[in-house]
């Protein structure tokens, strides 16, 4: 009898709470990405959830860590225009080269695919639409970022958003390059 009451209460609670949670998810504000500094470009790296959620996907450039990327996280890297090559590594290594354009934002995703012993990170180019399609992504914590200046710290992102409008489109250069 006592158990029946508990189950009934749990069911009633979940019925009340679920729509609220669903609404919170639906109403979540879109992630604001600041425009890159003038003359620079930037790449938004993100990792959707899925397989291998316990594994990190550490993004490196020229052998130096840019940032770790846990499941459901993203970070923004400001870079000089030109070709940049990134690598991720676990039991296997994967690379991605991107052409950073001045005043533009590009996107790249990291997924953990099936591996023999552990999952293997797979880094690939992505689009803004794909990035926006993943709900609930959160910025990487500052302590998970590399020692260099690559990944923007949360306070830097906040400052950039305060001074410049958020990027509306990944493919709209903000200023003319003379």
């Amino acid at each position: 009898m006592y158990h029946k009451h508990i189950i009934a209460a749990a069911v009633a609670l979940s019925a009340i709470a679920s729509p609220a949670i669903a609404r919170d998810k639906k109403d979540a504000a879109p992630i604001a990405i600041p425009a890159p500094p003038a003359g620079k470009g930037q790449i938004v790296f993100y990792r959707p959830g899925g397989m291998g959620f316990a594994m990190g996907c550490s993004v490196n450039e020229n052998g130096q860590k840019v940032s770790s990327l846990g499941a459901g996280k993203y970070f923004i890297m400001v870079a000089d225009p030109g070709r940049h090559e990134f690598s991720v590594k676990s039991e296997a290594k994967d690379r991605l080269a991107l052409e950073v354009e001045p005043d533009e934002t590009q996107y790249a995703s990291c997924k953990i695919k099936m591996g023999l012993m552990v999952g293997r990170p797979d880094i690939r180019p992505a689009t803004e639409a794909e990035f926006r399609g993943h709900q609930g992504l959160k910025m990487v914590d500052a302590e998970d970022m590399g020692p260099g200046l690559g990944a923007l710290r949360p306070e830097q992102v906040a400052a950039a958003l305060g001074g410049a409008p958020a990027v509306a489109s990944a493919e709209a250069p903000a200023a003319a390059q003379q």
Partner: protein
Amino acid sequence: MYLQIFLASTALACVFSPARVLAQAVPVAAEQQGAVTATVAPGAPCAPSLVIPALTPVTLEMMAPLGSKISTSGDSFPLRLAEPVIVDGVTLLPAGATGRGEVVHAKKAGGSGVGGELVLAARYLDVCGQRLRLRSMHLSPNGRSKTKTVDTINMASAAVAPPIALVGFLIKGGEVTVETGTEAEARTATIFTLASPGEPQSQ
């Protein structure tokens, strides 16, 4: 009498013909002069006043087949201007100029459902013996990923028979191909002007 008429008509023809020729020549010269100052006529795009602003949109056409399976990072490939460059109603450059692009990144599709990857960049067009630098060609298609299928097999097999998960290694993602004739948008990287002979290029 006939001889006099013939001589008179010949003399008249000699007097008026140069005038007619001149009258025909003047509009042509005026048109050509106008073309130099206002617009560049197709087939004569190398007027000294040619100025193409930075970030001018251009439509490019790939002139070779490209793909995650057949291309290699660092490969150079031919492209051409597919549509004339028109700014404020003025044709600055007719279609047809050729140039080069670069395969920035190419990766074949792999096991575990991973699709092929291809990142392409437009580098330049040859215009009047100079290079018109290009940027912002967003042509980076990915092959179809089947990682979700592999994940589903893994989840299902974990409960029933874990060795079945090994099948996932054999599932290959889709390759990506860019056919000859594929068009893509790009932009001019810098302001383009024609340098006078002996002058350094303005790029």
